[in-house]
């Protein structure tokens, strides 16, 4: 077949067409001439005749050039949709790009789904974690002008963020220049609500009458507590219920207002229901009932004169700042107040500093919270790394596609499209992908935040983790989607429109893609690095968790049940209460399957720790030294058996320790070593600062055991007999022979039969009780999140490595074919591809180790039993990642050795 191209090109030469256009016309016309030539031959012409005729037809009177001159050299018209002016052209362009993008994505569903799912995982993870950070740190209290709500705390003797009622009255009167109002709340007391023969435990806030004035909201039913109420102990027996408690426990009875009930045996009237979502003091705490402060005497431990007792510090102060008050003014006014009160009441209010700061949405604290922000930022950073890894994967897929589409793009540029316009078009595509990913990500995020918020605190207080998605979360997800769309799209778009377009249009497909190699390889190296960093951090967290789980608690949590006993909730007097708990203990011991049973004021790691300043006889305390203090617990006989705490010396608390016998204490090892180093502490005496008249004689030494948290060093601790220091409520602890869960219902049933009016919470196993924020919870959460992110990062890296190596191997099919044809053995080819894989994995691992090293230094304080540079974790995780990544390169390598040289060579 003659080559027409030369003749046609000659004809077109005078037109000076754009190369791409010229190539297209030449191709089409040449085909026509081929067909014509064949037709002429078939009609009986000789080859020479056919050639001559065809050439005549093409050069006929220069018709081709003349005709094309008119068609091709009209002013180029960009299609305009919405208008003719520049501005509207941009809009029109955007609209066109979007439609084109949607078509392109719809045409490649496989690619679209993979890319969108990848981004959805990244965005979803970020959204879930952000929803948590949002709920804990960002979302304000659901009250009007939440930025005006302040809380107060004092430092110095008698300081903290708990104040007495007389303190409140004095501070309020002396700070009217700062605050428009100031209320006091006694947060979360357990009470027993009885109504129509049913008893419920109810978490109640006792509040001053002006408390409900401040949030600026209306009740759902009835009224709130009035400013005139709560000033007199025992007066104003009214109750306002929380919305969800009213719904869940009282059947959302709309006629509830005015109904009678009793709280801890005292008659009260229900006067109102708070609106849904009413959490004026903390977004995390779900208070169930509100009563006037004076009614705090329903608790039989509250003295009837507590409203006048300056030392009875039970109130958190909530104040509304007047508009336009500066921090300097707050400080100067409060300094004066603190000095005045300290001078006037040196015993109760010896304050050095009194400060006010915005009430954190998570609830009242002594200091503005800081640590939570660091942890939140850390997890958001890790999550962002995962998202970047996802973006890199999508960028890699887009790069691969860009090389496939280079022909199309070159053509469009040749036809006069500006480079910026094409980049805009490609970015529109990646942004559309990211928006798809955003939608998927919100679904993933919703599931994730459900999981996060369902993590139980295992604590006996009504904490609700409400990680619902508000505008902040949606905004964050959308912003992430836009950013990731640009990150994933910009490099491929740039690459696709760069380089010599002529070469693309004329050359064969194989030579055009080498440019993208370096970039893709670089991206995957970064990806391997990022994923290794995530895995190392996850490894450190998991090792911490394992260390903690293996760590010696000093007691044996297996086979132990905890049941809270609070007979005061049923209206029992103090004496009746103690009789009741004694009889419960006696009968429980008689139940089958019980090894031992005892009472304790607090449960280890329950977040409810008691400590006292102590004075040790014969140990002169110098004025410079701080008064020594020790933690303590009040326990009944058999406590050490029940908890499995070994006694090292002397005896435990037993039946001989009666109310009127010698006051005794069992101390821990740390206390013995601290106060009586090298001596026998048995028989030595010390007293607690709260009760100097009754010194305690040491009768035994127990092993150190974990009481307040798992990571800080164990300090001095002592145990005193329940018979000698009565306290309520108490926890009944039971050691069972079999599974504790199986014994629980029997014990609960027994208690209910003894006191039907007393609400009893379910029995909790001691192992569950360890999962509190003070115990394992934080480590489990941290390890879980970090591991989830590490695994996600690993999967993304595997996909990345696999994708790039497969692609590179395909690109080298021709070369591999030649090698095989020249006698290369499959093993050699396998090694060649593996070497390419190692070229990605090894530099990536080095980068990852360095990055992890930098990041892990931030973690130092959170890790337990493992340093932030733990060589085992670094080496182990690096080897794991390297092996997995090399495994991912095996499949492409294997496939490369299967290349048939004949087929490969035919590619040309």
């Amino acid at each position: 077949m003659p080559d027409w191209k030369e003749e046609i090109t000659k004809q077109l030469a005078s037109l000076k067409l754009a190369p791409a256009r010229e190539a297209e016309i030449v191709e089409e016309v040449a085909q026509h001439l081929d067909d014509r030539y064949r037709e002429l031959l078939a009609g009986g012409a000789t080859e020479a005749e056919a050639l001559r005729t065809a050439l005549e037809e093409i050069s006929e009177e220069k018709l081709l050039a003349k005709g094309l001159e008119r068609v091709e050299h009209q002013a180029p018209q960009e299609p305009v949709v919405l208008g003719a002016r520049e501005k509207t052209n941009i809009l029109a362009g955007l609209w066109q790009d979007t439609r084109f993008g949607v078509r392109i994505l719809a045409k490649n569903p496989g690619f679209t789904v993979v890319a969108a799912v990848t981004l959805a995982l990244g965005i979803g993870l970020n959204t879930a974690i952000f929803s948590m950070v949002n709920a804990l740190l960002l979302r304000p209290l659901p009250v009007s002008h939440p930025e005006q709500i302040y809380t107060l705390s004092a430092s110095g003797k008698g300081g903290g963020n708990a104040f007495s009622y007389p303190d409140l009255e004095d501070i309020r009167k002396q700070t009217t220049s700062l605050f428009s109002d100031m209320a006091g709340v006694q947060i979360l007391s357990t009470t027993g609500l009885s109504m129509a023969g049913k008893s419920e435990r109810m978490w109640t806030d006792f509040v001053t009458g002006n408390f409900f004035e401040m949030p600026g909201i209306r009740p759902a039913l009835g009224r709130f507590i009035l400013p005139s109420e709560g000033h007199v102990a025992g007066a104003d027996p009214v109750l306002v219920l929380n919305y969800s408690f009213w719904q869940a426990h009282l059947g959302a009875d709309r006629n509830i207002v005015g109904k009678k009930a009793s709280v801890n045996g005292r008659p009260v009237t229900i006067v109102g229901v708070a609106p849904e979502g009413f959490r004026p003091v903390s977004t995390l705490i779900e208070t169930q009932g509100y009563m006037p402060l004076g009614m705090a005497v329903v608790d039989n431990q509250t003295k009837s004169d507590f409203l006048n007792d300056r030392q009875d510090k039970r109130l958190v102060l909530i104040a509304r700042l007047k508009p336009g008050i500066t921090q300097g003014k707050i400080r100067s006014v409060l300094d004066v107040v603190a000095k005045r009160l300290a001078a006037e009441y040196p015993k109760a209010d010896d304050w050095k500093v009194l400060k006010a700061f915005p009430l954190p949405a998570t609830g009242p604290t002594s200091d503005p919270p800081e640590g939570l922000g660091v942890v939140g930022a850390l997890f958001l950073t890790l999550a962002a790394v995962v998202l970047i890894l996802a973006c890199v994967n999508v960028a890699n897929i887009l790069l691969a596609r860009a090389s496939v589409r280079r022909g199309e793009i070159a053509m469009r540029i040749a036809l006069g499209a500006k480079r910026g316009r094409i980049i805009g078009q490609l970015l529109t595509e990646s942004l559309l992908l990211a928006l798809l990913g955003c939608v998927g990500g919100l679904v993933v995020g919703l599931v994730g935040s459900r999981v996060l918020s369902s993590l139980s605190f295992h604590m006996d207080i009504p904490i609700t983790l409400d990680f619902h998605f508000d505008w902040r979360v949606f905004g964050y997800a959308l912003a992430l989607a836009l950013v990731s769309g640009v990150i994933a799209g910009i490099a491929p778009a740039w690459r696709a429109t760069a380089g010599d377009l002529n070469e693309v249009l004329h050359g064969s497909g194989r030579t055009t893609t080498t440019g993208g190699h370096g970039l893709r390889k670089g991206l995957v190296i970064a990806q391997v690095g990022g994923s290794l960093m995530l895995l190392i951090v996850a490894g450190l967290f998991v090792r911490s968790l394992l260390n903690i789980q293996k760590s010696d608690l000093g007691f044996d949590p297996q086979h132990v049940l905890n049941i809270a006993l609070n007979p005061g909730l049923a209206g029992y007097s103090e004496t009746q209460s103690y009789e009741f708990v004694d009889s419960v203990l006696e009968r429980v011991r008689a139940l089958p399957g019980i090894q031992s049973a005892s009472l304790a004021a607090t449960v280890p790691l329950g977040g409810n720790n008691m400590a006292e300043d102590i004075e040790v006889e014969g140990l002169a305390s110098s004025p410079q030294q701080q008064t020594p203090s020790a933690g303590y617990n009040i326990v009944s006989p058999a406590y050490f058996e029940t908890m499995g705490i070994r006694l090292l010396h002397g005896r435990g608390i037993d039946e001989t320790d009666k109310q009127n016998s010698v006051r005794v204490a069992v101390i821990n090892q740390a206390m013995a070593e601290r106060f009586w180093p090298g001596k026998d502490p048995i028989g030595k005496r010390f007293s607690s600062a709260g009760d100097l008249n009754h010194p305690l004689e040491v009768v035994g030494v127990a092993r150190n055991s974990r009481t307040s948290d798992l990571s800080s060093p164990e300090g001095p601790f002592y145990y005193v007999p329940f018979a000698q220091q009565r306290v309520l409520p108490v926890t009944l602890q039971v050691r069972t022979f079999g599974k504790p869960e199986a014994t629980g219902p029997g014990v609960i049933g027994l208690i209910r039969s003894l006191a039907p009016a007393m609400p009893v919470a379910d029995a909790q196993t001691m192992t569950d009780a360890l999962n509190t924020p003070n115990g394992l919870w934080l480590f489990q959460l941290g390890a879980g999140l970090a591991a989830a992110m590490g695994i996600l990062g690993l999967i993304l890296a595997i996909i990345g490595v696999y994708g790039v190596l497969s692609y590179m191997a395909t690109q080298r099919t021709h070369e591999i074919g030649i090698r095989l044809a020249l006698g290369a053995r499959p093993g050699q080819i396998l090694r060649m591809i593996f070497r390419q894989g190692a070229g990605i994995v090894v530099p990536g691992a080095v980068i990852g180790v360095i990055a992890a090293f930098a990041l892990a230094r931030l973690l130092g304080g959170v890790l337990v039993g493992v340093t932030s540079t733990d060589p085992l974790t670094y080496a182990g995780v690096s080897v794991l990642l390297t092996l997995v990544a090399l495994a991912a390169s095996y499949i492409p390598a294997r496939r490369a050795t299967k290349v048939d040289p004949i087929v490969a060579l035919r590619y040309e």
Partner: protein
Amino acid sequence: MDPTPTDLEWKKGSAELLILSLIEARPRHGYEISKLIEQRSGGTVRFHVASLYPLLYRLEKRGWVQGRWVEKSGQRRRRYYRLTAQGRRVLASQRHGWQVFVEAINRITEVEHA
């Protein structure tokens, strides 16, 4: 058969109509279009490559037809032209105009039977 000047004029006026009609039912490539014109006119009307393609590109530029490269297995890719919606409207109106014209010519050129 060399084209006479009359021939050229005649073609120019009707060429667009011919092409649009031929791709009305289905897309066709340039060579196919030229073959069909030749066949259906019994060899009376012919478009050579040099005049066909400028015409096709002009129609395309006007948005009446749309060319598209199509690859079929075992063959080289070819550019197929199909009628756009706009082209369809133009065809309808040209066809109508042509019929009116032909009828008018017929009436004039008919032998008068006195």
